[in-house]
């Protein structure tokens, strides 16, 4: 059963549309759970308020981590995989029944794990390092979720096969779907590793296995824990290309290079998981250096290619639409009133300048030691997963509401402000956490003043200022997320129906016209911005080496 979309002209499989809707709704619910916990955690770590007791602090660290990093992201990605493999390719869903089985497994996993955490039977944090032991149902919940997600990924490949057999696309997959295929392959690696570690841990929690070696657990767990975030990176970048296409009719100025960058992700990005073990004595330096440097840099190269390719696709299209004056008219005349566009641009800035730069510095064996196990590490991944992935997912939702849920966006003025507010909040939160970590503040610590303990530590007085800034950033980001959730809920359940292109509040641009003449660089403005980024990166890079040199004074 299909409907023809009166806005895009796409043939939409109704069973696929229903599955996309349900997965997206569960993603939003997971995000709500995650941010409520996040606010309570921020208000606890900020010492003048210190809201929660130690027990609930660690309980909610577990709850927040699982809902934010696993449930929200993967539910949304599954919705994206179904969208990219059926709607975009004008083809049918290979097995709707299996899609529902996958969804039910994932939803039951979410409920089971969350209930067990809130009952206080799994205060093990997201990493659940052995010998910390949770209730067996906690592990079972995660296993059910992972099995469901794995079925969903298999269905994505099934849809691709049908599309290929039916010649639904040309020679190669569209770039957006190609990026999603990258995300799906990384998901297979991630979920298989998850099974490899969670199944023995589940059996251990039941008493059927005597011991799970902590070093081995950590090695394998990070193959899941970090790689799962690389699914986000691939999905996020795919959406960047998609929004360029939808908002200004832009395409990559060199698709071959963009596709090669995705292939580099497939081949090398999962090896970067090794940087979580940089201070572990069990693995050799050769293993650490190969995985976190040589191999990881190939994945970093891929990100830098995308970081140039996406803005240059915007610039190239804008110039072809006639915004040619100087270096940056294309940017000043960009569709800033389109919340999906502003979300993506802000996500690219935050992901590159905050998440990307710190990712490379913290991922190196030498400079990692300055911040290992400090609050700078979650500060770094607030710059990748939250400013990058979450803001991108929020942005594309503004297109999904009219196209998939067939509703107008309620409170569109708020939707225009929301990405900026979210960006400011998370940027403040993330940068403050990174600075706090550089000043030695530990992560996952209920009371970093060590009050009442046998040992105390006097931090640099600047710490107080950055704690306040972090709290402020957290509150702003929480408010922005709640605004987004309210917009989504009101639009989806109470919004006026979309009856055709006249009801679209966001532009769907036709493909930008071909260039009339071509002289010099195709995207000079982006080139300048790229050099600015490289200068900032070099400054941060050398600053960290300077700090490292100052840590141990050598006579």
């Amino acid at each position: 059963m299909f409907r023809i979309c009166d806005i895009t002209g796409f043939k939409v499989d109704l069973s696929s549309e229903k599955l996309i809707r349900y997965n997206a709704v569960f993603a939003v619910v997971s995000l709500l759970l995650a941010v409520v916990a996040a606010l309570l955690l921020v208000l606890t770590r900020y010492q003048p308020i210190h809201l929660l007791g130690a027990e609930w602090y660690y309980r909610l660290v577990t709850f927040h981590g699982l809902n934010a990093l696993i449930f929200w992201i993967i539910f949304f990605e599954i919705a994206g995989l179904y969208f990219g493999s059926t709607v975009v390719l004008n083809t049918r869903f290979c097995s709707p029944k299996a899609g529902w089985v996958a969804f039910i497994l994932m939803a039951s996993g979410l409920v089971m794990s969350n209930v067990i955490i809130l009952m206080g039977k799994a205060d093990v944090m997201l990493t659940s390092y052995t010998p910390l032991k949770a209730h067996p149902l906690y592990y079972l919940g995660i296993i059910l979720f992972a099995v469901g997600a794995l079925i969903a990924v298999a269905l994505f490949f099934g849809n691709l096969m049908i599309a290929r057999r039916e010649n639904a696309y040309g020679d190669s997959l569209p770039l957006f779907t190609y990026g999603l295929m990258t995300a799906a392959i990384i998901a297979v690696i991630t979920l298989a590793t998850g099974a490899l570690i969670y199944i023995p841990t589940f059996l251990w929690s039941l008493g059927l296995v005597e011991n799970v070696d902590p070093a081995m657990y950590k090695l394998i767990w990070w193959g899941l824990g970090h790689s799962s975030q690389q699914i986000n990176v691939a999905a996020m970048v795919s959406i960047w290309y998609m929004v360029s296409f939808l908002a200004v009719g832009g395409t990559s100025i060199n698709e071959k290079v963009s596709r090669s960058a995705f292939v580099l992700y497939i081949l090398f990005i999962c090896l970067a998981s090794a940087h979580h073990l940089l201070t572990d004595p069990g693995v050799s330096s050769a293993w650490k250096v190969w995985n976190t440097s040589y191999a990881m840099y190939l994945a970093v190269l891929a990100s830098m290619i995308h970081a140039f390719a996406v803005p240059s696709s915007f610039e190239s299209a804008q110039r072809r639409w006639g915004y040619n004056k100087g270096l940056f008219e294309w940017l000043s005349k960009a569709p800033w009133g389109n919340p999906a566009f502003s979300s993506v641009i802000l996500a690219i800035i935050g992901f590159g300048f905050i998440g990307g730069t710190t990712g490379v510095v913290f991922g190196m064996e030498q400079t990692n030691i300055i911040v290992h196990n400090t609050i700078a590490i979650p500060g770094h991944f607030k710059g990748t997963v939250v400013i990058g992935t979450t803001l991108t997912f929020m942005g594309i939702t503004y297109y999904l509401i009219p196209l998939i849920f067939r509703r107008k966006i309620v409170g569109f003025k708020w939707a225009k402000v929301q990405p900026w507010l979210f960006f400011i909040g998370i940027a403040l939160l993330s940068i403050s956490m990174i600075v706090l970590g550089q000043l030695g503040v530990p992560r996952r610590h209920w009371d970093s003043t060590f009050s009442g303990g046998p040992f105390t530590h006097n931090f640099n007085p600047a710490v107080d200022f950055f704690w306040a800034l972090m709290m402020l950033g957290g509150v702003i980001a929480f408010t922005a997320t709640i605004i987004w959730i309210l917009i989504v809920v009101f639009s989806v359940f109470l919004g006026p129906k979309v009856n055709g292109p006249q009801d679209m509040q966001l532009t769907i641009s036709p493909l930008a016209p071909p260039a009339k003449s071509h002289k010099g660089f195709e995207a000079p403005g982006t080139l300048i911005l790229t050099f600015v980024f490289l200068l900032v990166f070099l400054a941060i890079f050398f600053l960290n080496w300077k700090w490292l040199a100052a840590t141990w004074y050598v006579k």
Partner: protein
Amino acid sequence: MENESKREKENVPFYRMIMDDFMLLMFLGVTIYAIFYLLWGVMELSNIPTIPEELKETLIK
């Protein structure tokens, strides 16, 4: 018609054949990760000598 599409397939450059074959890409991705991250790591951890029983007991005490 069939011959035409056959000829088109034959003309596909090698790099694109690899880039468009998602099963091959999946195989390569899984293999590189399994060898360099998992197997190499597991091998190194497995080769750590076990703590002598006497020392272990002293430490536990």
